[in-house]
């Protein structure tokens, strides 16, 4: 299950009634909601590390929902976006989905559907957040390797044998064996296959 205690559902819409009713609905579903009546206000409050998802209106004065989506993508946000719109504007919906929107809902929306999307978006966010954390830890470990160890790590992960690596790096197979054990230890891996997986995460 999603760790709802930790996640926040952000809602951005210029209509106060929509914000208020959504906050109430999310509250009844046991979700924490944070509402903003404009994208600018949301951005000034936004912290990329905070888990959650975003319910975003498209048609707003000033910055539109699509523009906010673009800005968030530019700063590498992984916050899943559920777009809500008053009128079914197909080209806009297509554009939003192409740009990586999580879902697209037309007002007025069914609460079950909305909450289902929200739950799914939150678990996606959680998963992605975990992956990121994992990747970050792998990257941190790789950064602790010496340049020579890094070379050996890459070649082992590529599935090369000790002999091949020794000849490629012009070192003795024994020396390679020592580097290999250091890499295993620093990367917290027990096999060449695990090293290959860690390598893939960073790519």
């Amino acid at each position: 299950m999603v760790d709802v205690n930790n996640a926040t559902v952000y809602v951005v819409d210029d209509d106060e009634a929509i914000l208020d009713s959504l906050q109430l609905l999310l509250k009844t579903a046991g979700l924490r909601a944070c509402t903003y009546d404009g994208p600018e206000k949301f951005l000034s409050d936004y912290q990329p590390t905070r888990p959650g998802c975003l319910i975003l209106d498209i048609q707003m004065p000033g910055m539109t929902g699509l523009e906010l989506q673009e800005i968030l993508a530019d700063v590498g946000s992984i916050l899943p976006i559920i777009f809500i719109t008053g009128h079914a504007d197909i080209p806009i919906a297509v554009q939003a989905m192409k740009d990586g929107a999580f879902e697209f809902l037309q007002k007025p929306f069914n609460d079950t559907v909305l909450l289902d999307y929200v739950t799914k978006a939150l678990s996606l966010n959680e998963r992605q957040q975990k992956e990121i954390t994992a990747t970050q830890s792998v990257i941190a470990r790789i950064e602790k390797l010496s340049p020579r160890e890094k070379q050996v790590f890459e070649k082992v992960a590529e599935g090369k044998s000790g002999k091949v690596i020794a000849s490629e790096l012009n070192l003795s197979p024994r020396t390679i064996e020592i580097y290999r054990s250091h890499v295993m230890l620093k990367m917290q891996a027990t096999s060449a296959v695990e090293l290959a997986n860690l390598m893939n995460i960073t790519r």
Partner: protein
Amino acid sequence: MNASKQSLAEVEALKRKVKREKSARHQAEQILEHKSTELYHTNQKLKQALAELDERAIAKEKQLVGELRANQDTTRTLLDSAQEGIFGANSNGRLFSFNRAAEEMFGYDSGDVIGAGVSILLASPYREQSDESLRSFLQSGDESFLQESRELIAQRADGSHFPIELWVVNTVSADGTIFFILIRDLSAQKAAEQEIFKKEVEVQQARDHLAHIARVATLGEIAAGIAHEVNQPLAAITTYAQSGHRLLDAKVREKDDIAYVLQQIERQASRASEVISRLRSSIKYGDATRERTSIDTIIADTLTLICVEADRKKVEVEYRPECDLEPIDADSVQIQQVLINLIINAIQALEAANVQQPRVVLRTEPRAHQQIYVSVTDNGPPISRETMDQLFTPFFSTKEHGLGIGLSLCRTLIAAHGGSLNINRNRREGNEFFFTLPTINAVVKASKKMESSNG
């Protein structure tokens, strides 16, 4: 002897006396005879002279009568040839002449009406008033009775009515004041007036119809915005209601929350219905209804209808309200229609020209002579002089699918309110359309002025 002698002498004397007397008598007789003959002749002459005189008098009389008759005939011919109905009446209102035109108009033979009262020719209520007004004129001598023509309703022999114009001319004759009354049948004229009025009504109806079509067409252009305006509160209502269900299902029922949900639903429902009633009044079809309102309210209502369209086209619509503007007497829907037209035109022009930071600014200002000035200004490329000259021409449009009725209709609608609509030709940047509207006080003053000049 002396005695006889004396007697003889006496006889002789007597004899002479008789003789003298005799001759005298004869002489007298002769004179008498002569005189009587003379008399006879004189008498004869006199008789003859008298006879001659008589003859001449008769001839003269005959001549006079002839002349009079000829004169009467001429008058009669003259009267009969007149287009107007003419009849004469004495001071008691009794008819003594009735021309042919009058006969035709009224369906009476002159013989039937001579001697009757003038009032039989008039329809009620004029019939009852005619004798009285004649009498009051005779008593007061008020010349105004004669000076002006008046329009009345006349009644024919068959009882049918027709409108007439009537003049009274008076003249004093041996029998006292007599009147000649001239009448023109206004039936044809009235029918023509009726026809003109009918045409005017038709033109008005056609204009209303056109305004309605244009309004619906304009509303079509901003339909997305209107739909959005209704959909927002509906979406909120749906979400509130769903939250309410969840609250009821929850183990811990929070009464306050349920009450809050219901209150919000109510509020949003009335918000939706307000939009709908605004919309309904905008597309309503019918006669213009004037009411006391403020230009501020009209602009605010217009902006709620237009804001989503403006957002969609990314045009900033700004309204700088001027406080203390006097109220106006206007058909809100029509003024709204004019504003929507001007704003939509601006938005479309800005979009077509791909203007950076497109902006439409609405301003209101009080002006001299109790006028309110309203302007819609955009920051698009200026309209060319040639286009400006044609802007208000019906069926002229710069838009690909434009009907070309918007601006010319707007001008008509503003003119119907006693204002004027135009484009500011002196701007170097952007385009400014403006119109003026009289304040309610100006309208009241004008109508008072009219009343006093009429009364």
